[in-house]
């Protein structure tokens, strides 16, 4: 069996740390291993988290403040850019699911954005996909991409699959609704994520994602020209 994907976790709330730890250890296939936990990005990357496959980052680190303030977001986005430029794969999760914040985080080069209420269904998948440069989109992230004015042109089928996925349908239900295979639904959604990687600031995570998507036959090199 392949070695588990190593995860470094930046979080300052003990409850959240315990929650994520139990999700990771509760995975029957033990696909993830939590190797470092720290209260700040520097705590994590200066310790054993330096060589982790994926960094999981809570966007809201100051637990005293309930709302995510504007400069805190910009500071966190700048941290993500620095991490990505140092060739780290970052998955962000947050209480907040504001479209602009999600888009800023993705623009910085984060692999995926998981809303806190999506953690149980999507966190492990998102981290595993990030480690392999494969696309993965939880529903909230899908919504932010669909309504982004800068998103690339998408086919009707891709739009429909993503819309139903955003609305909360399981992929199998989306497939039945659209009269197609579940694997095709997955392909449509992943293709949208891959196409979105060419939007905005260049980052190694985006080019790796595109390269992997072409290699896997998800998109054609022509799709991203």
């Amino acid at each position, binding site marked *: 069996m392949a070695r588990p994907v190593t995860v470094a976790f930046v979080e300052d709330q003990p409850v959240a740390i315990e929650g994520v730890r139990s999700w990771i250890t509760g995975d029957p296939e033990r696909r993830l291993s939590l190797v470092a936990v720290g209260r700040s990005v520097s705590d994590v990357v200066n310790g054993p988290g330096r060589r982790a496959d994926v960094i999981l980052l809570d966007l809201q680190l100051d637990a005293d403040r309930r709302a995510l303030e504007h400069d805190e977001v910009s500071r966190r986005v700048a941290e993500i850019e620095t991490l990505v430029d140092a060739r780290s794969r970052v998955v962000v999760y947050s209480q907040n*699911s504001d*479209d602009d914040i999600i888009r800023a985080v993705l623009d910085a080069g984060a692999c995926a954005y998981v809303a806190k*209420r999506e953690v149980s269904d999507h966190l492990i998948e998102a981290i595993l996909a990030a480690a392999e440069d494969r696309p993965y989109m939880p*529903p*909230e992230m899908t*919504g*932010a991409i*669909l*309504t982004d004015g800068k998103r690339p042109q998408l086919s009707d089928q891709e739009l429909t699959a993503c*819309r*139903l996925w*955003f*609305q*909360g*349908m399981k992929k199998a*239900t989306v497939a*039945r*609704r659209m009269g197609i295979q579940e694997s095709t639904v997955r392909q449509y959604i992943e293709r949208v994520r891959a196409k979105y990687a060419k939007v905005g600031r260049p980052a190694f995570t985006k080019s790796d994602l595109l390269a992997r998507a072409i290699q896997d036959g998800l998109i054609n090199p022509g799709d991203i020209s």
Partner: protein
Amino acid sequence: VERVTVPAASTAAGRYVRVADRLVVVIVVTWHVIYDSVAILVNAGQYRSLLLQMLAWVLLAVIAAIGSVRLLRGEGSATQQWALVAAALLAGAVSTAALPVDQPVLSYANWAFGAVGWWCVLLLMHRPLVELGLALAANNLVALAAIVAAGQADRVTLARFVVVCFGTAVLQVLPPIISRLLGRAATLVEESAQAETRTRGRRETAQAAHRARELRYQELRRSVVPVLAGLADGSLDPGDRTVRDRCRVGYARLRRLFAESDDVDDLLMHQLRACADLAERRGVLVEWATSGKVPQMPSGVHRALTEAPMHALAIAYRHARVTVLARPDEVAVGVIADTSSSIPQLSTIPDVVVSNHQEGEQLWVESRWHGP
């Protein structure tokens, strides 16, 4: 004294005023080219100095050209217009000074006397009438001075002079007066037409609001009243699940009706929250996901968009997810709810598509609006 306000060219009043301006320009140009030139030619041999007459003619021609352009362009500051008036009076004085010696001052040879009056009209068309009166009086004074200087100031000549002054003045003040009257009349007509349009607009809005209200009450009569009546007379059993579903939908409909008249920024979200609020009170856990900004939508679209979600929320058991996905030309409202009840066939409007899908205890409904 400020310049008299000239109505804007885009208004009917402005168009009338500009027609009057053009008329004055035509009068002045025709007068100068035909009457003045012929008068000089006919009397050429008798003038004290033909050269001075020609000089006065050329000077007035130049002033007419400048004055016409300025009038048609709507330009005219008080000082500049009065400088031109002074130049015209000077030209008139030069011509009068060079009249034939042996002829009466008020004769055919004195072409400048009538001309300068029209030049004053051209230059002071949009100045207060008092200014035109002063300029015409100055022109008359020039002629009177010439009469006195020529020793022709007898009673008959003076009486004739008064009659001529009065006659020409009456003609010359007519264009500015008619222009003002036409302008004022056109403004009144336009204002009353606008007032009528406004009244008609208000009446149509009121009628539309009334029709919309009637429609809502008819809808309530169709959906809520039969349930209440049935419960009251015992023909409907509150223990029956479908009866309870109908009660909940009716309740949601009432809540949405109240939420419609609220003045809020985002009417769609406001109405959806009103529907979700009722479900939450029954203990349904409602989860929200919204993305994008809801655009301006035609009236009636909000109701059509919330109809199916309202039903789904009313019959949800424990959990419902409400989503709004908005782009500038498209809004999709989706609800996923756990329920074994199904929603009835809903009537909708042409731009809104309602879909639903049921799998076991999971109901999905979606209403989507596509903008033009």
